[in-house]
Each structure stands twice: as C-alpha cells, then as structure tokens.
C-alpha cells in the first residue's frame, strides 16, 4: 500500500543539466527504499528546447508518471510558464526569484522563491543543488541523505567539488527551513534500499544473463542505451561489441556470429528494424537464432526520435518477405524485460528462428526502482539441439563425423539438429535460397514443388507446439468486473493504476495484459474476452494495431478503444476517464489529451 505518493517535475532547456538533480533525487528516494518512476520528456536537441523530468515516488509500487505534480522546479522561465498551471492546492513551486517570474498560481500553491545567487555563491551550475536541497527539506528528508547522495554522484569530480556542493546544499536546506513550510506529508521510508535502472539497462542485463557474447548495433534513439551498456561492460564480461556501418550490416553480422554458435543480439528502433527486415528473413531461412529488440519511438520515417509509441506491431509481424516462423514478445516493464531475454533466447535456440522484442521508449529510457534481489542472473541456458565440437556419446549434440548428417533434416518436430562451423563431419551450406534437407539449392534449376512444400512445412511445423512453452495471459483484478481493459507492452502498469482510480469511483475493472504476440494464445484470450462484460483495448497508436491483430487472430472485436498517439505515455486518469466516458455508452473511441505541454 502507498502511504504517500508524490511527484516532482524539473524542467529547463536541454544542456541546463536537469539530469543531475534528477539523479540526486532518484538516488535519495531509492536509498530510502521508495519506489520510483521517472520519465524524461525531451526533444532531439543537445542544447535549448524544453526538457521536463518527472519523478514519482511512493512506498508502494508506482507504474507510471502519475497524474499530478506536488513540486515544480523550473530552471528557466519557459518551464514556469508551461507548467505552473499543473499545480493544485498543497503543491509548491521552487524557483530562482532573481531570474524567473512566477505567473498566476492556483490558490493554495506555495510559491517559494529562492535568492539563488546568494545561496549558490554565484555558481550557476550549483543553482540546481540549491533547489534540490530546498525540495529535500520540504519533503521532510534529513540533510544527511542529500549529503550522501552528493558525495556519491560527484565522487568522480573529486573531494573539492563534493565539499563545495555540500556547502551550497546546506545553504539551500537552511534557507528553506527558515522560510518555507514543509509539505503536509513526509517522504516515507520503504523496507530496504532499492536499486535504480533504465529499461535499456534491464534489456542489456537480460541479454548478458542469457549468455550473449556478441552484440552489434548502430546508434538510434531510444535504443542507444543498450549499446552503451554493452560497450561499457564488453571487456570485463568477454562480449564482442561492434558498432556497425548501418542496421543492414548489424543484422547480417549478428546472424553470421550466431551461425557459429554464440548467442547474438541487437537493439534498434523502427527505422533500424526496417533496414534489418530482409536479413530477419535470412535468420528464418537459415534457421539461425538471433534476438532483436525494437525500442519503439514515434513514426513513420524519422518520426519522433525522443517520444514513445506502440506503432511498430505490424512491422514486426511482417518483417521479412515470405512466410517463416518467428517469436514476438512485448515485455511490460523493466524486470519483465530482464527476465524475458533469457527465456526468449532459450526459445529461439530451441526453435531455431528469430526472436523479436517490442520495447518502447517509455520502458527503454524510463528510470524505475527495483529490488536488487529480483535481478537474478542464475537463469537456465538451454541451447536446444545445437551440435558443438565437444561431442561424445553422452552428449548427442556435440558430435563428430556423422556421415548421415542433414542440417535441414525433415523431422517430425520440424526442428533439425544444428551443427556450428568447425565440427568435423557435419559440413553443410546454409542458404537463403530454398534448399533441400542437406542444404543444396532447389530454387533455380531444379525447383521442385514437392520439396518446396516439404521445406515450408518443416519450418512451419516448428511452431506447432510452441504455445505450450509460453504462459497464457490471465486476468488481473476482479473476475466479474464491469469492464475488461486489454493492453500490451508498457501499458500494463498504467492500466493497473487506472483500475485503482476506477475502483475509488465505484467502477470495477480488470485487465488482460498480452505479452506474447507471436505465438498468440488465441483460444485462451477468446475465452476470457467472451466472458467479459465490456472489453476496451488501450494502446499507444492511431489505428489500433493490436485491436486489428486481435481481430485477425480471434475474430473478436472489442466494444471500445482508448488510443493515444501524441508521443507521450498514458497517465492513469486518461484511461480512467475514457472508461467512464465509454461506460455511458456514448463513446467507443477515446483519444485522451495530454495536458503537459512538452
């Protein structure tokens, strides 16, 4: 349960350094054992523009940026002008009274002006530290917590910088104590200190836990964080990390690597995935497993490099010409991302096909807290029927000199034991042309309809039993609820919070969250939805990509739809209000307006 739940907004121009105060607060809250959820709204600029970081914290789980701000810290006039109106009674704004003019605040908002020049001793960069110190005071947090955070965050810059920041912070803290009222609530304490990570870090760590030893990528927001994490840790972990000339090269390179037996991975965003598509088909045709993460941003084309969307589902479904098996999964949050990577790698090894992950900017770049004990690297690594050079009779998939070896043997499961290059006696050619069981081409001179049919069916047959390996979706919340909200990917958490709000208003709602898109548990899903009173699909795109997919797989059409495609994530009230609107029966499509102008 949450005894307190508050959110702080810090805004300024890009390059004004809002990352550091954000880090300091995240650090203090996580140390205190508070759950946090931080979202940075920004633009594709290095300087200027407007950047707005929201950090929400509570002693219970928080799944989204929330609905309201309790404290606004504007670092420039623009931020004050844009966001002051978001504050309601009991909230507060902390700002430099010498350089920023406050606008018309709502009644009950505490307007707290700081004499910044004096408190920061004229040091412009330290102004942020003053504001953070005042915020920490208002939240009822002892100064030592801030001191520790500053020591850790500025440690790299040396003792002098730490001492200076602590001194300036102490000025701000004292000034606040003498001049401002603390909040009516106090930042609570959680059970134990928590860790903090981004979704991209969780993705990379999940890959590392899965045993990835080859990572290649081309920088593209919002997926670059995965590349940076991998590159930073490459040497200590023995991972080959390469920045390649383009995403076409990336996908081809990881397939070349995976073909020799390593677990290979990449992450990109929609534009990069578009370039990879032909090669994804090669993974399907070679039956060489790879994993590719698409951290979705707003499209089409260059679209919104720094904004979130769920607009690439159909591209993922159709990536690559022709018909071939693939796996597509959309984890719901950071820890789910971490745990899904090893599971997906095991499945791609078992079924020898590409594994695609739908992430989203809101996950990849979102910062949340996590209980470090939940990050478990001791996972099962199952390589399927892969033949390495160290075989003996005990180990049938490490083999020598099998003269009957057929790489693409037409087995009853469709899965054919896969030798990696270097194993004596298992020579074969992997070919993107259609081929026979031994790998020889049947595409040009000898096109043979019978053999072609056999090979198409062999590959397709691999997916016959895959559903049994994947958990079916289940309802969360009261079973006989008035309304069932269906979502996929990142919306699980915000839907849970919308359900709480609805419950407060006397409306019962439950959720069917879909994580695995391919294979799709069509029967289980249909059964649940047919038993639901009213089904509303919630997603972050214009055309209802999941709604259409659901219809194509099950024939089921929902009663209502909540869609958002303005680049910003859902806030819980967007969904709750849409549901209320739709329960009146007047509306079946709601497109919530994002109130924060970023």
């Amino acid at each position, binding site marked *: 349960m949450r005894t307190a739940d508050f959110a702080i907004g810090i805004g300024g121009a890009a390059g004004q350094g809002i990352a550091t105060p954000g880090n300091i607060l995240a650090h203090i809250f996580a140390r205190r054992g508070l759950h946090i959820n931080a979202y940075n709204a920004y633009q594709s600029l290095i300087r200027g523009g407007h950047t707005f970081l929201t950090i929400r914290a509570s002693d219970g789980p928080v799944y989204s940026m929330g609905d309201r701000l309790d404290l606004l810290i504007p670092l420039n006039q623009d931020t004050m002008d844009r966001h002051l109106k978001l504050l309601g009674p009991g909230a507060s704004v902390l700002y430099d009274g010498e350089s920023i003019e406050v606008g018309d605040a709502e009644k009950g908002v505490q307007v707290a002006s700081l004499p910044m020049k004096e408190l920061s001793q004229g040091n412009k960069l330290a102004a942020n530290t003053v504001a953070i110190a005042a915020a920490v005071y208002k939240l009822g947090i002892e100064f030592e917590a801030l001191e520790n955070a500053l020591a850790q965050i500025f440690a790299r810059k040396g003792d002098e910088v730490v001492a200076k920041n602590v001194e300036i912070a102490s000025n701000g803290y004292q000034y606040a104590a003498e001049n401002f009222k603390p909040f009516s609530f106090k930042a609570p304490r959680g059970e134990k200190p928590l860790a903090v990570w981004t979704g991209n870090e969780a993705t990379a760590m999940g890959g590392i836990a899965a045993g990835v030893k080859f990572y290649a990528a081309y920088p593209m927001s919002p997926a670059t964080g995965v590349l940076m994490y991998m590159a930073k*840790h490459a040497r200590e972990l023995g991972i080959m990390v390469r920045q390649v000339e383009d995403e076409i090269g990336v996908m081809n390179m990881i397939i*070349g690597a995976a073909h020799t037996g390593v677990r290979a991975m990449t992450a990109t965003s929609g534009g990069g995935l578009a370039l990879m598509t032909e090669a994804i088909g090669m993974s399907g045709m070679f039956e060489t497993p790879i994993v590719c993460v698409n951290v979705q941003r707003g499209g089409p084309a260059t679209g919104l490099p720094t904004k979130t969307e769920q607009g690439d589902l159909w591209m993922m479904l159709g990536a690559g010409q022709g018909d071939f098996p693939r796996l597509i999964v959309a984890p719901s949050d950071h820890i789910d991302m971490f745990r899904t990577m090893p599971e997906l790698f095991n499945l791609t090894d078992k079924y020898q096909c590409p594994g695609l992950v739908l992430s989203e900017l809101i996950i990849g770049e979102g910062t949340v807290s996590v209980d470090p004990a939940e990050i478990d690297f001791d996972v099962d690594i199952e390589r399927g029927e892969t033949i390495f050079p160290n075989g003996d009779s005990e180990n049938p998939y490490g083999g020598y000199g099998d003269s009957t070896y057929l790489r693409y043997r037409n087995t009853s499961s469709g899965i054919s034991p896969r030798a990696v290059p*270097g194993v004596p006696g298992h020579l074969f050619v992997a070919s993107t042309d259609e081929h026979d069981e031994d790998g020889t*081409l049947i595409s040009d001179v000898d096109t043979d309809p019978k053999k072609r049919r056999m090979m198409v069916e062999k590959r397709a047959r691999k997916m016959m039993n895959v559903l049994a390996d994947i958990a079916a979706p289940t309802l969360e919340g009261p079973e006989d609820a008035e309304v069932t909200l269906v979502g996929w990917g990142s919306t699980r958490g915000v839907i849970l919070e919308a359900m709480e709000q609805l419950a407060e208003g006397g409306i019962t709602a439950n959720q069917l969250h879909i994580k695995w898109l391919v294979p799709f548990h069509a029967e289980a899903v249909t059964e649940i939805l047919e038993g639901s009173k009213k089904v509303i699909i919630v997603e972050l795109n214009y055309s209802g990509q999941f709604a259409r997919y659901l219809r194509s797989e099950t024939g089921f059409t929902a009663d209502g739809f909540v869609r958002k495609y303005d680049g910003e994530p859902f806030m819980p009230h967007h969904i709750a209000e849409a549901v209320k609107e739709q329960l009146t029966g007047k509306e079946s499509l709601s497109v919530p307006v994002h109130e924060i102008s970023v």
Partner: protein
Amino acid sequence: MTTGTLTLPVSETKPEKSSYKGKVHPDWCPGCGDFSVLAALQKALFELELQPHQVLTVSGIGCSSNLPGFINTYGMHTLHGRSLAVASGAALANHELKVVVTGGDGDGFGIGGNHFMHTMRRNLDLTYLVMDNQIYGLTTGQTSPTSPVGMKTKSTPHGNVENPINPIPLALVGGATYVARGYSGKQKHLVEMIKGAINHKGFAFVDIFSPCVTYNKNNTYKWFAPRIKILEEEDHDTTDFYGAMEKGYQWGEEIPIGLFWKNDKLASLDQLEPVLEEGGPLAYRDPRVSKEQSDKLISELL
C-alpha cells in the same frame, strides 16, 4: 558445454585433392570464368592443407555467389550484397575459422558497397574473392558498377554513360592490407594470389577478371588475353603504396594482374580485440557470467 578452453578441432590426416569437391556440379554456363576461380580456390586450400571443416565459405547472391554450394567446406550463401557483414560476424565469433568470402562485382561493389568499405577499414581477417565479370550475370545481363562506359547491356541498351569503379585503387584507399588482381585465364597465378590472401593476416582482397561468356560481349577472354601483364614478372614493389596506386589505375593496352599491395604492419581486428585474447572462439565459450561479475553489475545500480 564443457568448461575449459574449447578450440576448433584439427585432425592429423591431411586433406586430399578431392576433399574440397562439392556435392553439386556447378550449374554455371559452359566456359564461365567462375569454374576456374572455384578450381583455383580448391587448389589453394589443398596446398595450404586446410581441412574442409576449418573453412567457412561465405557468399552473397549472383552466379558467382553460388560458389559455396560447389565446394566442400562449411558454407553460407547469404543475401545479395551482405556476404562481408555476415562473414565479419562469423569471423569474430569464431576467429579460428578460415573465412573465405566469394561473390560478384554487383554483389560487392554495388549493393554491398558500404560493407566493402567498412570491412576493409576494419582490417578484418578475411579473404575476399570477387569474380568481376563487369556485368550482372544472374539477372541476365544488366550494367554493373564495373561495366565500362559505352557498354550495351539490357539496362543500358544505348550504351552505359556512367563511370565505372576501379576496385584496385578503391581497395587501396579503403585500407585493405592485401590487394591483388587475378584472371580466370591464368589459373596457376590465381592459385598463388589466393594462397597469399588466405595466409595474409588481415583483409585480403582479390579482384578476379572472370568473364561472363553469356552476357558480356566486351570483356571476353579474347579481349583480356593480349592485355594481361603479370606484375610478378616485372619489378613491382608491393610495399610502395603510390606505386600500387599507379599500377592500379593502369588500363587499356596493358592491364596488370598480381599483388599490388601488402601491408603486414597493421594488426587485424581480431588481434586488436582484447575479448579474443584468450579463451578460444567466442562461439565455443561458456556463455554464463560468474556470480562475481553479475554482483558487480547489480551493485552499479545501487
């Protein structure tokens, strides 16, 4: 998988001449230059005593790119233009394999041009054999990046007006550390070029005139025969970059083949990559991270 270093197994028995004969007889047109390139590659592997399972032959798509199906080694017949990217991944993930990349002029200099440039600059330890017939063979005769000005093809029926690429200077500037040219009509010489390329530690490029007897009526055996001049028979210094450039640009009455440039001073990418220093091929290593390593990753988040 077992613990300890697992390396690529090599047996005592030496390969025979026939060891490299593929399951399938090449379906190239009779007289196609690619037959000679295949034979030269098989001969080179035999003379270097490389066992078939130690070798990975990687190609793109085209008549020439069908080669992996006609030779008995591990093979990958990839996508049009992508052979070098795939081969780079394979060579880095298992640096004990001998990776030989084969393909055509369209595959390598057209659709695959970007990978060509960057693979050279990285000095990956690969052997790249381009069967340069100055035409798109498999798609039945369209212009290629090496088609001469004026050449009539199915896509340039009024004569090609674009300037061709000259692959030798391109490779020199691109950073390839072994740059040679061969000719299907001089197979013995070609075997030496290929052996040198495979033995070279770094990116070795051999541009091979391999006439398309069906679609290229300009650059035929008859056209090449009087023009070919073997560099090894004259006084060419393979460590003189500018001399190599000058020879590379020579075209017309005399066209040099042979080794233009060899640079042994530059380390190849696998030698520069600390991850490969010990532990054998990545492909064969235990994929797990240790408790100590994962604890460190978690502590960084605190």
